[in-house]
């Protein structure tokens, strides 16, 4: 899977970083960034969880 974050939509809730800290990180202003753009299949469930958890619909996950 390939992950991207729309920083303009991010509201810095931190829910993605809480769900999958190895894939999502927050900068000093709380904005989420992708630390691992193409995570291994073993992380796919957690990544999907982060996508669903985002209240701002800022995360997209492509096959």
């Amino acid at each position: 899977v390939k992950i991207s974050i729309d920083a303009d939509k991010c509201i810095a809730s931190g829910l993605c970083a809480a769900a999958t800290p190895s894939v999502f990180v927050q900068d000093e202003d709380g904005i989420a960034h992708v630390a691992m753009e193409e995570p291994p299949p073993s992380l796919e469930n957690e990544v999907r969880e982060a996508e669903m958890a985002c209240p701002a619909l800022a995360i997209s996950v492509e096959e």
Partner: protein
Amino acid sequence: MWRMIALPEGLPTSAIDFSDPVLAEAPFPSILSSLRDLGPVVYHERLMQYMVTTHQDCKRVLGNARNFFTPKIQNHALFGGETIFSMDLDRHDRIRGIWAPRFARPSIGTLRPMISGIVAANVKPFTERVRAGESMEALSGMIRAIPTLVIARLIGVPENDIGQFSSWSDEMVLILQGVINAGSDGAEMVSRGSEATAELNGYIHQVISDSAGRPDADLIGHILASPVRNEMTEWEVVAAITQLVFAGNETTAKLMANTLYALAQHPDQRRVLAGNRSQIPQAIEEIHRWLTVTQVNWRIARNAADIGGHPLNDGATVLVMQGLANRDPARWETPDELDISRELKSHLGFGFGMHSCLGMNLARLETEIWLDQMLDYLPDWEVSEVAWDNMANRGPSSINVSR
């Protein structure tokens, strides 16, 4: 101990009166926007607080919990004990995590049938009377009951107690109004709000005491069954539930009332929406940006924080002007215009950062379902009279609808 507070040098100042009814009625474009023209940080001399006026700086303050934390005193007054609202980092995450899955989009989505039923029971009789020619007040006649009934169902409150619940929740708002009221009424408002909080706390405490063996299906049962509950005091559990009641009622009702007002003012956009219901979620975001309910948020500076290069004393109170930030021309073109077809960008209506609204998905879904039904039953409503409430929870205190 008295502490010397250095006066802020080189900052523009303002003595804006947040309790002024003229301000609540028409804060935009002129009165509040003029604060932004003064600069990104404006010092309020009477309140001795720093007002942050740009979208970018408001985001930075709310997103940076290390340098800006939520005042605990105000939080205690509102909810009767400490809640995630003012908790720091790790503890916040663990305790917010108890209910967070219940408020995530997939779980909230499963509530659609329950919410649709509650909405229909309030929208149908109201719109029937308006269609028959009556002019009706929409908050008391339709809107106000909806979020209360929904949160009461989620919490597990018996139907008979819901009316009392609603009035306590309304009174609690006085605390927020009192805090930004520099006049002599401020203290009186805080005191009345605190009484309502105490009564609601007592009621919830009783519910918890009687809840042995309660299933974890509702939110009270869920928190009582959570392993994290052992890290919380009894009063923190009471405060957490009090916060749910408070947060879910007044604010969502105001969002709906603002939507009534906004679309009555823009019948062309309402017509587009009536013909294309898939645009409803985006339209609600734009309405929330344009008419923000939580206009003002608070933070306290620590760890030698600064805003846009201006240093703050530890302990300084920062007023985050969320409603003003939502009309920042640096982020939105023609920000004082409502345009439901705008490209979707995040706004600060539900806050920002780790303390952003836990219930935002619920508030959105309730408002979406309600608006969808309004467009079915009364697509051409008119607003004949509106009175605006305070700036703390901005929205109509009454709004008369006719056709």
